[in-house]
């Protein structure tokens, strides 16, 4: 993509204004007349068009997939869900909650009691009208004794009550101003009350399921009766499960699919050379992490933690792992794109002298530092560990890299060994990320970070509806983790999708790839 094309894409996606575009074009030596024509073209491309079959090549499918939302864990079922169903709340384009089947909502002070007003006149694919009973049933699928991936965050809900046919009240054990983010989770999609026939799922979505062959393909047809304005443009959606990275890329290059995701950063330069293909890149919350148990020697010593944080070359890790398609981490689990990202923390860089200084200060020259690494954590984890070993050695810190078998890594190593390679997928809201991994009693607290002050800040931030005060709390938590926490976070990864240039409306989203999974209802095919 040339720079001019880039700006055309930006204006087409509404990321820059008309005036900005003219300015950029002029800076690139394009005359005003030509720029105006280009602008019109970009505008034209922006106009959604109807019809066609959108073909998606998606990884993360298995022969055991079902359309039961409580079983969903990966991309294929996630996208299938958003293609034929809606949630109460959509995580909007700028990572802000947007009304979907819930029309509006309101929190009582303290944010522990919420009232959601549901949209009227929306019909399921089977003709039934959506109401409060359906919403309560759909949410309750993920509460109590369930294997649902959303069960964790839903535990905070103590009661869901029907107020009238179109209003429900949700009560939480303690306040959480970010409840709308919780409800934007991809598991929490709406189905009719008592619905159980997951082989033929019924939702309110833009498409109806036509065929579902687990781990192979899924086909959808347009729902002519779709309630949402300006969404659901194509006639049919075809999802092909392509788990192999190269096969996915080949399918896009040969035109057998229109859109792919999880593009291998190493091959992206080649992809960019193809004139008919475009890369869609979104900064996301996915980050690799080297968690240290803050209650286990030698990592219980804060100076050891600082020494280890200064001994890693983050820029190089970003290059090696993601060919630069990401951002360097700052031992803060909140991504740059988050509205509550603490932008005033100084960036930690590789500094052998500083690392040596803190290491010596800790006075534990005989400390045995064993890093348990496995590519089960993420592709390239072992390479990263080896690289880290080399840079740390220059600071006089001897890291022993222990290669762990991929099979059983999450059962036997994660949360068990004191210093490992791991990752976090990111969460839509900052308080969710901080809660799931850094709260004292969180089951997945992989740094054993147990600080009363931190827990109190988190509870306060959740219960606080005042933006300014919340920001203060959340910034302080990030500061504590950055300065003292056990999480060494070298890099954040970008979401990398690619599509053929006949696809429009496929925009980057911070939440997840494929437009946060909603690509089928947002994208269209240019005639």
């Amino acid at each position, binding site marked *: 993509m040339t720079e001019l094309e880039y700006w055309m894409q930006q204006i087409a996606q509404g990321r820059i204004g008309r005036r900005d575009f003219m300015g950029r074009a002029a800076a690139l030596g394009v005359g005003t007349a030509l720029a105006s024509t280009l602008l019109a073209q970009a505008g034209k491309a922006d106009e959604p068009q109807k019809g066609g079959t959108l073909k998606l090549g998606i990884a993360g499918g298995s*022969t055991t997939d079902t359309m039961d939302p409580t079983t969903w864990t990966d991309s294929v079922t996630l996208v299938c869900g958003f293609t034929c169903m809606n949630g109460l709340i959509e995580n909007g384009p700028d990572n802000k909650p947007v009304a979907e089947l819930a029309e509006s909502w309101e929190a009582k002070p303290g944010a522990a009691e919420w009232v959601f007003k549901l949209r009227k006149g929306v019909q399921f694919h089977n003709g039934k009208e959506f109401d409060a009973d359906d919403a309560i049933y759909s949410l309750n699928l993920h509460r109590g004794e369930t294997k649902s991936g959303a069960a964790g965050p839903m535990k905070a809900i103590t009661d869901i009550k029907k107020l009238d046919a179109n209003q429900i009240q949700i009560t939480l054990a303690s306040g959480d101003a970010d409840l709308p983010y919780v409800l934007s989770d991809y598991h929490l999609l709406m189905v009719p009350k008592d619905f159980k026939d997951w082989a033929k799922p019924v939702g309110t979505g833009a498409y109806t399921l036509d065929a579902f062959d687990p781990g192979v*393909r899924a086909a959808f047809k347009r729902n002519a009766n779709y309630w949402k304005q300006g969404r659901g443009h194509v006639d049919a959606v075809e999802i092909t499960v392509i788990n*192999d990275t190269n096969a996915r890329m080949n399918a896009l290059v*040969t035109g057998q699919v229109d859109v792919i995701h999880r593009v291998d950063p190493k091959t992206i330069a080649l992809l960019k050379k193809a004139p008919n293909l475009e890369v869609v890149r979104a900064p996301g919350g996915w980050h690799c992490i080297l968690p240290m148990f803050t209650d286990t020697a030698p990592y219980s010593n804060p100076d050891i933690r600082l020494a280890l944080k200064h001994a890693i070359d983050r820029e190089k890790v970003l290059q090696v792992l993601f060919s630069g398609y990401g951002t360097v981490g700052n031992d803060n689990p909140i991504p740059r794109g988050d509205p509550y990202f603490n932008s005033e923390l100084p960036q930690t860089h590789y500094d052998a002298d500083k690392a040596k200084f803190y290491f010596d200060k800790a006075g534990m020259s005989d400390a045995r530092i064993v890093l348990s690494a496995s590519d089960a954590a993420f592709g390239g984890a072992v390479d990263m560990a080896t690289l880290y070993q080399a840079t740390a050695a220059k600071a006089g810190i001897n890291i022993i890299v222990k290669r762990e078998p991929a099979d059983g890594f999450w059962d036997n190593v994660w949360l068990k060994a004191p210093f490992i390679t791991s990752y976090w997928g990111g969460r839509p809201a900052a308080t969710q990320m901080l809660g799931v991994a850094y709260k004292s009693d969180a089951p997945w607290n992989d740094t054993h970070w147990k600080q009363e002050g931190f827990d109190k800040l988190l509870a306060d931030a959740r219960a606080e509806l005042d933006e300014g005060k919340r920001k203060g709390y959340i910034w302080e938590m990030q500061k504590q983790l950055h300065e003292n926490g056990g999480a060494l976070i070298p890099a954040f990864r970008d979401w990398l999708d690619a599509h053929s240039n006949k696809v429009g409306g496929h925009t980057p989203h911070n939440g997840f790839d494929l437009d946060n999974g909603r690509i089928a209802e947002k994208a269209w095919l240019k005639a």
Partner: protein
Amino acid sequence: MLRLIVQRLSLGLLTLLAASVLIFAGTEVLPGDLASAILTNSATPENLAAMRKELGLERPAAQRYVEWLGGVVRGDFGHSLTNKRDVIEELAPRLKNTFFLAIYAALIAVPLAVLLGLLAAIWQGGVYDRSINVFTLMTISVPEYFLGYLLIKYVAVELGWFPSLANVSPETPLGDRIFLTFLPMLNLVLVVVAHMMRLTRASVLAIMASPYIEMAILKGLPKWRIVVQHAFPNALAPVINVIALNLAYLIVGVVIVENVFTYPGLGTLMVDRVSKHDVPMVQACGLIFAGTFILLNIIADVGAIMSNPRLRHPR
């Protein structure tokens, strides 16, 4: 003759029985209890016990084996543990795909390999013989996925003749199916041709050193007639055996090719289920693969015997 076939078949059944014991024992010693594999991190002692009871895991392994075997004999392979669907129902379309690709590849590879092998024997030591030897050695030496990627790069991406994605579905008509699976078929053909072709050539040439061939040469017969009429029928036995081995490979060994071309065959299904500890499915796949191997070997044995008059009419 009939007695021989019956005898071979019953031996085959015995082998299959032995294989079924191995398969059952193999899934039994897999690390991690089945119940805990299903419940993963939501396992509590109570629901673990309940799950074990539901699966019947508390009973002795021998008893469960007999029950499982009884079901298999009646054609009931049980239900998948992951999605509760009937194993046979779920296997059937995959099995069909696997057999389709195997037959497609075999129909082309076997005649081609025999022809190339005979030609190499006729023109032994010539330019053709040497180049076909080098070429087939190359295709057999590189890993099959690498061949697959080469085919995709040149045939699918650069030339655009055939698709790189063999995404067939049960509704795909035969014509489209043949087109969609062309590259995986070619990939498999390239892998198996070398073995069969080289063996054909070697066995024919071994026969060519016999006195009766010398006689034929002295009679002044043309070389191609000597090879096709006199040498090849006597070289059939080893050729049939190597063909059977390769056919078995086409059915049980193609998981990598399936993956490269995203072809929904039995191999990917089995790998998927092994990682999810779906024991009934893995056992069914294992048994089908074992059965295929045994059956093809019986056919090869019988074929080899039939091609040899001395074995056909034992004294």
